[in-house]
């Protein structure tokens, strides 16, 4: 859970203030008794789960699938960019490689937005109930650790797995892009990509936490995979529709242009409950510097405005609320999962 981006700089600052000597000492101490570094039990659980994930058929299949799809999207995106060069204003920025789709394929970001929930669900849906069906749970819980250690370890292992896959994908496609386009990324592009990666990991964490919750509550792994998948389908297919319905009730469209604007704004606010909407907006703002706002923009507001690009820090500011809500969703879902798990009978 330290992967949220903001925790890392703080940690590094703390470490760098006190001499590299201590680091060196710790490293040497670690090297002498290398395998003896268990700081807590959840690390042991996470380590085992991570090894399980990385060696599983599930992982290999998903990795190959996503790898092939991502490569295809980036190559076709690069193709489309090359053809559009010159017609489309200034030189295309490096990041457009990820956001521009080809003729038949979606953009890289579009694909990843679609795939991330699946990855989150895939590495979490059988976390606890598989232990039950394998009858390993009583033995595991009888070891000297708290129950939180089990669920935290499983959550972290799932998250690390997806984070590593995603990081590898971004690097790989970036390399391909540099090759095929011949544009090197600017520093701010790299910053935006890292930020996008971090937000994506948080987005995966939402689905992972949901899948984990299902694996605690639902006994059968097949059922516990279906529940989060159903949630994902409903949100992505009918999310806008449902938001529209709710908005019509809360702020009826009748009564002039003000009411209409209010209706649209309510609809937007409601749809931001869905993690997919939040993530979609956040990733578009992070990867496309031209995105300035998510709200309703009237023609008179853009009158005579000079089209320009937001600096990285301003884009970051724009998605800060989204990130906060996503983190909040993760915390709430995970807390529910952990709470239910703590109160469950071992022999249920």
């Amino acid at each position: 859970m330290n992967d949220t981006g903001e925790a890392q700089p703080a940690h590094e600052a703390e470490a760098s203030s006190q001499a590299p000597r201590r680091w060196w000492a710790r490293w040497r101490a670690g090297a002498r008794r290398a395998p003896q570094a268990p700081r807590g039990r959840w690390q042991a659980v996470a380590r085992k789960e991570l090894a399980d994930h990385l060696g599983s058929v599930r992982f290999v299949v998903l990795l190959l699938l996503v790898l092939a799809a991502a490569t295809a999207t980036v190559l076709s995106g690069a193709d489309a960019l090359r053809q559009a060069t010159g017609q489309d204003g200034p030189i295309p920025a490096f990041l457009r490689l990820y956001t521009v789709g080809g003729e038949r394929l979606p953009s890289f970001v579009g694909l990843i937005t679609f795939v991330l929930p699946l990855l989150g669900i895939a590495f979490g849906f059988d976390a606890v109930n598989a232990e039950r069906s394998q009858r390993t749970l009583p033995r595991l819980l009888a070891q000297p650790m708290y129950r939180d250690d089990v669920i935290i370890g499983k959550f972290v292992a799932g998250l690390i797995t997806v984070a590593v896959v995603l990081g590898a994908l971004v690097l790989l496609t970036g390399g391909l892009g540099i090759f095929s386009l011949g544009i090197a990324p600017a520093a701010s592009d790299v910053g935006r990509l890292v930020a996008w990666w971090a937000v994506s990991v948080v987005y995966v964490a939402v689905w992972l936490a949901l899948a984990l919750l299902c694996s605690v509550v639902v006994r059968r792994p097949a059922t516990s995979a279906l529940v989060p998948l159903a949630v994902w389908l409903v949100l992505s297919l009918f999310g806008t529709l449902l938001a529209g319905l709710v908005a019509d009730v809360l702020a009826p469209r009748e009564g002039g242009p003000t009411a209409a604007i209010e209706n649209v704004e309510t609809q937007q606010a409601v749809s931001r409950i869905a993690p997919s909407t939040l993530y979609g907006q956040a990733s578009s703002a992070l990867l496309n510097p031209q995105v300035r706002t998510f709200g309703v923009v009237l023609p008179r507001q853009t009158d005579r405005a000079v089209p320009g690009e937001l600096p990285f820090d301003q884009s970051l500011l724009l998605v800060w609320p989204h990130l906060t809500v996503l983190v909040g969703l993760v915390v709430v879902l995970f807390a529910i999962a952990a709470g239910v798990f703590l109160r469950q009978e071992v022999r249920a």
Partner: protein
Amino acid sequence: MSEVETRAGAATAGPAATTPRIATDGLTKRYEGATVVDTLSVEVAAGEVFGLLGPNGAGKTTTILMLLGLTEPSAGTVRVCGFDPTRQALAVRRRVGYLPDDVGFYSTLTGRQNLGFTARLNRLNGETAQRRIDELLTRVGLLEAADSRVATYSKGMRQRLGIADVLIKDPEVVVLDEPTAGIDPRGTVEVLELVEDLAAEGVTVLLASHLLQQVQQTCHRIGIFVGGGMVASGTVDELAAELGTGRIELEVGVAGGDPQAVLGDMATVTAVEPDPAGGPGRWRVTARRDDRAAIAGRLAEAGLGLTHLRRRGDDLDDVYLRYFSAETDSAETDSGQTDDADTQRR
């Protein structure tokens, strides 16, 4: 947390040598109104093998879970190695090895890897852990199969791996729930020998089983569980003696006639009835004293042939069956409820 534990540990380290390893007082567990464990009070000393004997659903497993702090008691107190399992769960689980009923392992990992994971959870790492794992694998006779996946193990091998798993943490108390269920006679003997070895090393063993024979031959003391309560406890001899007082039952086989009239008017005999389990010619005689000689003489006088004469209650078998039949007679509805509740939870 660890600081608190060590302090608590230091406080109890002295008396721990003399006080029992396991002590419960009025331990009770209720699930949705049904009492699964009913005011259980028991003490088990170091190096003792205590048998929990009872049918399925008698509350054995629930009692074990309470000892490990995996389920909270509704009432009463538990002390394991001087610690309260509910409040000092880690201290207890560091000292208590638990082999659950029908133990499972991660089938995609090898036996060695499974033990390695348990070792890491018990803060054993590196060479220390490897040495200990090898030692235990040798002890349970799994060294050759150590590097094949658990999915290929037989039930008996899995059970032995379970025992190695329990011993990794070098426990003071070992709790074995049905350790011989579903394994062949040779495997059973091996497991029971391991239990005896452990006890000889000073480990307290709690052996839950519904198989009388094993409990009888392995355990120093036995507690008989019926419907959530411990109806009797003690050594095999004590239990038999306890039942023998006041009333004894004799199985009598008679050829050539009905002994009811002949035996019925003896002063010590209170009842003579046909033995439904024994078939024709078998009778069950209830008497105030063990007066087998007089009965044999009386039958001979009346010209009846004596084909069988055995006192019931000498064997733990009878003790066991007697308790169960008494329970089903007197508390049919009650035990039925707890059984149901128990199956639902399973």
